């Protein structure tokens, strides 16, 4: 029987993941990578929910269900987002976020 990882360590991992996602979202130039960063943030949240369910409220399933729903909605969001990226690519032949600057201030 392997000793369980303490909850604190798990939470440190998810928090790190979340802020890695934030950092990526704020610094990346490519729209697809920005979307991936958001997905990392959402996955950190999923892990959070699952960890809380497992460690603090064993027997409850709400966290698990919530993470399933988050996965589904993230997929929907990515579908719409990528459709819009394609639309933008047709218009300006680029998906670099620095080119998306027609409107400012």
């Amino acid at each position, binding site marked *: 029987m392997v000793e369980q990882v303490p909850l604190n360590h798990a939470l440190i991992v998810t928090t790190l993941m979340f802020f890695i996602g934030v950092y990526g979202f704020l610094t990346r130039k490519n729209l697809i990578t920005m979307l991936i960063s*958001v997905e990392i943030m959402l996955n950190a*949240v999923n892990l959070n929910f699952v960890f*809380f369910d497992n460690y*603090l409220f064993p027997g409850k399933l709400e966290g698990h269900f*919530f993470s399933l729903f988050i996965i589904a909605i993230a997929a929907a969001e990515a579908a719409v987002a990528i459709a819009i990226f394609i639309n933008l690519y047709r218009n300006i032949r680029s998906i670099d976020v620095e080119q998306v600057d027609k409107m400012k201030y």
Partner: protein
Amino acid sequence: MTVQELLLMRHEWALIAGVLILLVLELNFSEEQKSKSIISAVVIFTIITLLGFLPAESGSTFGGMYVTDPVRLLMKNILNLGVLIIFLQAGSWLQTKNNYNRVTEFYLLMLSSVIGANFMISAGHFLMFYLGLELLTIPITAAASYDQYKSKSAEAGIKLILSSAFSSAILLFGLSMLYGSTGEMYFSEVRFSNDLIQVLGFVFFFSGLGFKISIVPFHLWTADVYEGSPTNVTSYLSVVSKGAAIFVLVLLLINLFEPLRLVWQQVIYGTAIFTMTIGNLFAIRQQNLKRFLAFSSIAQAGFILLGVIGGSALGMATVIYFVLVYVFSNLAAFGVVIAIEQYAGKVNMADYNGLYKTNPRLSLVMMLALFSLAGIPPLAGFFGKFFLFTAVAASGFYILLFIAVLNAVISLYYYLLVVKAMFISKSESPVPYFQSDYPTRIALSACVIGIIVIGFYSPVFEYIKQLCLISF
């Protein structure tokens, strides 16, 4: 589950049925008949709106996931009214050549988004709330990039979907902390106790919701998205999507986050000041009318926060009343912008010079709308602001009240800039005289009647206040 329980979700059923009917109808229309779906959508939505006003019972269903009561019904009805006006205004734009083939898509996206708003308002569980929030946002991002051949529209779509995905991730992170510390997700069972992790979770949660309302540190997407989107979608974003988020914020703060009151009062105190001030100061320097209205709507959101901060039933009533007024005044302003953009293709403030000479009625509508937004008596906007200020004074935030009144004065300046352009400034080539189509005229007159009647007819506010006092 009985039929009675299912009927509690009347608004949502009606909307879902409307979406399905529209889908089937569209299949039966040939290429030339596509514009018929404009009429059918408007008729269907009128029926849905009227259905919403029928008396209904309150209660909860789906094991408490879905809650409804008179206040929530009223909120949904207000949003429905707004959407109906938007549908009426959208007709002439949808009949243009580029959009001719995909008329139905616009209505489907809008209707799905309204379903999301309704579910979000009626949520009794965090999962339902989150699903409603996403259903509110995702279709509207698609609608924001509706103008396929304009790169600005695609840009607006990208800015909207990335910022909303980012904000919902932040909101969810806060939600996971709240779940971790309480172990419950049903609003009726969550018990907050002022733990540090709950405070942190609340701050994350509030930031996520703040993106949707465009409260100041989270407002940066607003102006760009409002400018780039088709104007009809912009009016939806600024009225319905923002209104729904505000309603939810009020409901959650008063019911659910009551134990954290001291925390959220401080948070809202700060954000309200920044939202009003920055919204107003940036609105002054805008030349594009859509951006101008974007910043004015940010400032209005700041005023709405004044009603929220008291956290009382009275504050809630003032917020609902203010949003009702805001729906009519903002949609009147957007209606004029849409009409002029449609017939002359102009959205800059300089293009409005001398509008009164050529289009006196449109300029009068615009003037009434802007005066109502600025809060000049005896229009409804004045009473809306007045009640908000009384709510703040009742809860004792006098410094906040002072800043709010100062901001009301600043806002008067930039609203009057537009009025000056229309009535006083001369122009070599003003927008020529044109007649807008009947639906737009109906929508604009409905807005004007709303702006004037709601102000004079005091039972409206009394009714809302009674409902709120009974329910909360």
